[in-house]
């Protein structure tokens, strides 16, 4: 469904990700893991269109979207939860959802917001609060809810668990796992390898802007790199 071929991504003249080949199939959930500064967020900015590709191509359902502006990708079904959540702090929870829902399609806005509230009842309780007054966990739910209010086909999440208490990210992670199991495609950047491997079926290990390992969860679990770096004593315990 999503396919990056020889993609080079960076900022202005600076290249961060050199030559990336990455695919996410229809209904597939894929994670991206790697040390700080590896280029994970930069990769996602390339996919969402905030950073244009310096080289290479990107296709979506076989169509070339390499030069499609970021604002037109949401309507194609690509929704993003960025690092740091970026909820609209001075809009209420319900306005955060509404603005995203309306931006892709004027129809059935109310229904889509209600779907999000059913998924995260906590957001319904706080629907009239400003986004900036929510706790970190609530903001993450809102950022994910905002993406889901667009009824995407691919949900991209950058750092699901970062800064959240385990009980919170386990809960949010479980919701994402259920969505993925229900057929939504997911591309997840996550430092907590156990969490990532529970949600996704396949993954990439990125370092210095290059893919150093790729494979299914079963394959990756058996590699020394993943064991040493992420699943051993040094990794966070999920």
């Amino acid at each position, binding site marked *: 469904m999503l396919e990056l071929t020889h993609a080079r991504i960076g900022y202005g003249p600076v290249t961060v990700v050199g030559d990336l080949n990455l695919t996410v199939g229809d209904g597939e959930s894929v994670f991206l893991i790697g040390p700080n500064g590896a280029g994970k967020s930069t990769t996602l900015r390339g996919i*969402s269109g*905030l950073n244009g590709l310096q080289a290479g191509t990107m296709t979506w359902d076989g169509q070339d979207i390499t030069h499609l*502006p*970021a*604002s*037109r*990708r*949401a*309507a194609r079904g690509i*929704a*993003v939860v*960025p690092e740091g959540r*970026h909820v*609209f*702090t*001075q*809009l209420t929870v319900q*306005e955060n959802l*509404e*603005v*995203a829902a*309306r*931006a*892709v399609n004027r129809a059935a806005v109310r229904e889509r917001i209600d779907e999000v509230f059913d998924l995260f009842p906590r957001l319904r309780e706080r629907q009239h609060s400003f986004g900036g007054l929510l706790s970190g966990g609530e903001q993450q739910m809102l950022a994910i809810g*905002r993406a889901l209010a*667009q009824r995407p086909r691919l949900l991209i999440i950058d750092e699901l668990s970062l800064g959240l208490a385990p009980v919170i990210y386990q809960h949010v992670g479980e919701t994402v796992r259920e969505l993925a199991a229900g057929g939504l495609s997911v591309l997840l950047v996550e430092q907590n390898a156990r969490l990532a491997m529970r949600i996704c079926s396949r993954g990439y290990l990125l370092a210095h802007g290059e893919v150093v390992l790729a494979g299914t969860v079963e394959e990756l679990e058996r590699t020394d790199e993943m064991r040493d770096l992420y699943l051993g004593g040094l990794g966070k315990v999920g």
Partner: protein
Amino acid sequence: MLLLAGGLVTGSIYALVAAGYAVLYTATGFVNFALGAQAMVAGYLTYVWFDTLPVMLRIVIALAGSVVLSVLSWVLIYRRVAEKDILAAVIMSFGFSIVLAEVVQLAAGGIPRPARSPAGTEAHTLGPLSISSHSVTVLVVSAILFTLLGLALSSRGGLAIRAMFQDKEMAETIGIPTNRVTLWLFAVSGIFAAAAGILAAPILSLSPHMGTRLALIAFVGAVLGGLGTIRSAIAGSVLLGLLEAFFAGYISADWRATLVFGVFIVVLVAKPTGVLGRVAAVKV
């Protein structure tokens, strides 16, 4: 009372330009100093250049001219520069305002032109207060424009613009065409600048360089309130108009320009985000 009314009238005119600044600044981080010169051009379009046409038509021409100047100057001059270096773009807008002033001076001469208010000049007395039709028009028109702007921003469609004011990249990511919205905001700022010029000309004198002064005073007013929030920029400018009127009335009319820039320096030193900035940021 007279000072209060006079201060509100000039303050409202500053506030129209300040609203134009704030609309653009919140969306792009760019301060368009040429808004003052656009106001001046709108004044010439209304009062000097088409004086055989009916006044309503001249006003429409002035509004349209200012909108075109606003949008085209962004697309053709500032946009590319602003992406790399916003300060360079701000300085360019200052340069563009000087160009506009020089062009008008070549076309119409440097001497101030009389501008007769379409609203007439007769005075109305309201108890102890005597106020001209034009002053009433200034207050009513600016109140209407501010209300319309407020209503537009708090509407369903305005939600997307408020989202964009807060986080442009995120707005783009959820599918808001921020470049196109920015063009609309430049058009809106053009309307506000033109309204300021049309309303100011009968009060201040209409001359090629009136725009520069208007641009600077409105900027001081906007910074006094807080440039990052539209309503504080408006409130700050009205406040500055009042300060200026009372200062001129009680202390010295000759030193009012000094007052304005004295206020500017004090604000910049004391609180760069504006005195009303913090309160307003929580309320929006």
